[in-house]
């Protein structure tokens, strides 16, 4: 076998290919992403506002900055980021997602540079961005270490990376895997492979190999009583982090 490493997993791509039409259905297969979108958008926005000294009440506060959304899917994050002023590039390993994302952006009148490619393609072309998003994607890639170091290298000096995934704990096995897929039926069965969930320390180690230091870490927690998501200190299921180039 040739010594070519890739981050794309054919099974994962096939899985997303089959769901590519449902990205923008708030009650469809991607419902959880829709329901926690406002909370994670706030996390990303606030972290970027602090990092780049921008005022969140301003019109398009991030004008002049570039952002790449790795594994952008249908563009649930790319679109809001564009509205906030970033010049947005969205990439995905699943070509069909790029089709869905492009059609949607066009309909709502947003100019986003969507491309069907992998993080390593951007790295090979020497592209760099002020903000790199790796949201709910690392648990779907074939080579986690390669993926994280590659993403880290896409960050410009002075820039930042925002990541999110699910922790590999007993609680996440119960909540995110069995609960969400089998009991609540939020997600199609088999959406996630629990063994591929990443501990925050593993996420941080992967980024460190690419020259980034994690500088904040927050849990994203579902409150069943209020039927809402919020940022907490509980990292045991879903979590978010930011990382910046090490000094």
């Amino acid at each position, binding site marked *: 076998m040739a010594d070519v490493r890739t981050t794309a997993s054919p099974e994962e791509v096939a899985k997303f290919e089959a769901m590519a039409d449902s990205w923008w259905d708030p009650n469809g297969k991607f419902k959880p992403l829709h329901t926690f979108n*406002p909370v994670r958008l706030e996390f990303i926005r606030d972290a970027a506002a602090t990092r780049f000294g921008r005022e969140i009440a301003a019109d398009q506060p991030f004008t002049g900055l570039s952002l790449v959304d790795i594994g952008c899917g249908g563009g649930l994050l790319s679109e809001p980021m564009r509205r906030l002023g970033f010049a947005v590039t969205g990439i995905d390993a699943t070509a069909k997602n790029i089709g869905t994302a492009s059609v949607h952006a066009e309909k709502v009148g947003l100019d986003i540079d969507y491309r069907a490619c992998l993080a390593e393609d951007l790295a090979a072309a020497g592209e760099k961005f002020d903000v790199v998003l790796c949201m709910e994607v690392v648990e779907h890639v074939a080579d986690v270490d390669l993926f994280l170091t590659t993403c880290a290298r896409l960050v410009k000096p002075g820039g930042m990376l925002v990541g999110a995934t699910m922790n590999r704990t007993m609680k996440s096995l119960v909540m995110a895997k069995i609960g969400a897929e089998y009991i609540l039926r939020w997600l199609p069965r088999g959406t996630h492979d629990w063994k591929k969930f990443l501990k925050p320390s593993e996420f941080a180690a992967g980024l460190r190999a690419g020259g980034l230091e994690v500088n904040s870490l927050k849990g994203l927690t579902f409150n069943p009583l209020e039927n809402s998501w919020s940022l907490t200190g509980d990292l045991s299921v879903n979590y978010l982090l930011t990382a910046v180039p090490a000094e």
Partner: protein
Amino acid sequence: MSQTVSSSAGVSGPVLTCDVVVVGGGLVGGTLACGLAQHGVSTICIDKDDAAVLLDTGYDGRSSAIALACQRVLDGTGVWAHMVADVQPILDIRVTDSNSPLHLHYDHREVGAPMGYMAENRTIRRGILARFAELEKATLLAPASVAAVERRVDGATVTLTDGRVIRARLVVAADGRRSQIREMAGIRLQHGLPYNQVGIVMTVWHEKDHRGIAHERFLPSGPFAILPLPGGHHSSLVWTEKDPLAWTILKLPEEEFHAELMSRFGDFLGEVKVVSKRFGYPLTLQHASRYIDLRLALVGDAAHGMHPVAGQGMNFGLRDVAALIEKVVEAKRLGVDVGAATVLEGYQKWRRFDNVLMLGMTDGLVRLFSNDLAPLRLARTAGMAVVNKLPGLKRFFMRHAMGDVGALPKLMQGEPL
């Protein structure tokens, strides 16, 4: 010269783009448009009437009691600064009924702030128009009428009868009780039983200074309110009368009308003269079965029409305004599509329950008036300010009517967004 523009495709005209289209530039829609624009949300407001008509004395002879929390909404949207010179603080309220002369007395000196303000609706409209002129992101198109509204998953298009086309993320119906936009969306109304009452409204001049005192009398035919206007010598009257009789009274020759009026008003302010047209408003209760639909939100009277004796129509409309501005601005600052279902659901959840409560309360109180409940009527007249200042009373209301109404929008607390 009537020109018909079909609502189908092919209509040509300039295309305008904005975040939100507000149909109806009345007290509620106008304030909403100003508040959105001030917070960076580009807004086009459409009204069927020209500004000059809106300010005409014959257009709207009403005055509004503005509760303190709603004064904050007008303040936070920059409208208040343009009307503050023409408002009358309500310093004291005296409630009487046929049996006891001084039933309840509520004095601002005991609480340290006025209970609310009185302003002519024209004053508020003038304030809104002046504020529009200052805001870069607000556009007022008037006179203009809506020919068609197309609401899609990916956006909305409003076509005007003159052919202009507006593309927006969200359409807001602020076009009053008989909302065309609500009807076009097929949102049903729930009606209360008719009260068989009419609100007779006018402005009077009186010889003696009112000293900022509001009076509310409970007469057998319904409440009779004297509400102080700026300058000391004018007051706004809201005189409730049984249905067929009211229309007869409204048409009485001047002398006889004056005699009817004085028998209720009394002579405590000396000589009294009616200085406006006489207006008659049938009192009905209506409530939209829902406040939202695909890329559509209802606010103000388009969503809820209540008994005006409550003096709460505009106040509740301004609560809708404060909540919708907060939800839309929150979305805008997150880069979320401001017309997305999640944004609208948040608004409806926040407001509809609150309004059900108020409508129920108003309705129940109008019907089941008894001496024991007189303070509640007083509260309604003076606006929520009073209710808020009588926490025991408020709790009483709330408990009896279901439970807590949740957090107040920031604009109502005088906090910036």
